[in-house]
């Protein structure tokens, strides 16, 4: 689905990531870990075409990112659900409208008013907050709303950057369960997190591959997390 071949990324004269090779397989569950500042977010941005590698090649659904126009990247991104740690929303639109926005953007305006949307809100436990505006939501509610927005287009891949970074343990578990459920539905999930307890919890429930960024390089983490 997403293939990285000897990928490097430099910024401001320094190399942040180098010699990264990975083939993200369909239906797999990945964790990406590493210390703060290791380049986890940069790696995810490379995976969904927000950044272009300075060396190597990235193919998203078979297309080389370097040869794609901005609109082609945008269309490809509709097949990738992204959840960011800071959960950016459009603050003057209700939570319901924010979650439905990917449908509206892709031209499915009728679906944006569909009953499935309410089901999705119920699934992430936000039915009662549908009319609320993003600034009125708690950290956990924003994370769940971001997850709902990421999956509303039924993407093939879900990339989550520190999805439990701003929430308590109970909410972390709840978000993890939602992601595990999506994986059971056949979605590929890649979570960037430095929360080792979350990774251990997930590994007890799913066959997850744990990747680690260390010294700018991607490594497969062993059993000793």
């Amino acid at each position, binding site marked *: 689905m997403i293939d990285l071949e000897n990928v490097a990324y430099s910024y401001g004269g320094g190399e942040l990531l180098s010699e990264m090779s990975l083939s993200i397989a369909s239906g797999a569950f990945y964790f990406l870990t590493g210390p703060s500042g290791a380049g986890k977010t940069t790696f995810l941005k490379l995976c969904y075409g927000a950044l272009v590698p300075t060396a190597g090649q990235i193919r998203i659904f078979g297309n080389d990112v370097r040869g794609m126009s901005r609109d082609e990247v945008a269309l490809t991104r509709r097949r990738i659900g992204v959840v960011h740690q800071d959960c950016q929303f*459009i603050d003057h639109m209700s939570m319901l409208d924010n979650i439905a926005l990917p449908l509206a953007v892709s031209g499915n305006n009728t679906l944006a008013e569909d009953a499935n949307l309410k089901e999705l809100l119920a699934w992430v436990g936000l039915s009662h907050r549908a009319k609320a505006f993003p600034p009125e939501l708690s950290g956990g509610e924003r994370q769940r709303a971001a997850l709902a927005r990421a999956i509303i287009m039924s993407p093939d891949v879900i990339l989550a950057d520190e999805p439990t970074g701003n929430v308590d343990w109970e909410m972390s578990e709840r978000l993890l369960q939602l992601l595990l459920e999506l994986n059971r539905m056949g979605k590929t999930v890649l979570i960037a997190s430095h929360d080792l307890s979350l990774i251990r919890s997930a590994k007890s429930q799913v066959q997850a591959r744990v990747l680690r960024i260390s010294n700018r390089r991607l490594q497969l983490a062993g059993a000793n997390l």
Partner: protein
Amino acid sequence: MNSLHGLLEVLRADHHRDRVVPATGFTATLTTLTAAAMAFLIVFALSLSFAADRLAARWATALEGTATIRISAPQDQLANQVERSLAILSETAGIETARALNIEEQQALLAPWFGPDIPLADLPVPKLIAITEMDGGFDAQGLRLRLAAEVPGAVLDDHMRWRKPLVRAAQRLTLLGAFSILIIALTSGAMVMLAARAALAANAQVIAVLRLIGATDTYIVAAFVRRFAMRTFVGSCLGVVGGGLILLFLPSETTTASILTGLRLQGVDWIWLFIIPPALAAVAFIATRFAANRVLGELS
């Protein structure tokens, strides 16, 4: 093809997309006020242009097809020179009528300056011959030469000497009005472009979110362009209504014939006011589209 698709996308109403850009903010107020002010100015530039055009047309047609011969000669030769001039005129091709003004007519012409009781018969006032031309006109230069040779006191005045510079001045005023409208429209475009750039910068988070969820540049551009075109349209409607009301209460040209009193639009000229808001909206459309495409390119 991509440009056409982008254009059609902008024209297509989409209530979800139209809500993406916040409806309030300083750029919204700035755009609306700028459009109102610019439309207001365009109304007056337009009325000045039309008034000057009407004046040019009036001056161009005033005394058109007529000429005058002025005969200044000693009293004992005056009648003879008038008679000789009329004889020459009767032989000149292109002249329909020629007749000497009588004493009452000449008195009426001088009355505004000397009063009605001027003893014209006692004064050495030149004699005037009024000429009416045929459609094709006559050879003024040829007539002048012949008069100079045969009637030494006769001077032909075809009115072009004073009419031409006035008509030219009025035509230049018309052009000035049109040029002012162009400058105002370009300034409006520049102002809207600046406001659009500020709005795009202020809404960086909206753009980031839209990009994250797979919005194409066409979608994002359309959201901003529609918002700014609508604001400009509403603002220019307000400006046109304000300017139109003031024009409506200006004195009508029919009461006194002057450019200062003839600024009020006449007849079908009023229709032009309805063209100003959509025209300014079109300028805003182009300006915002240009600014949005540039900003999105820079953000990549």
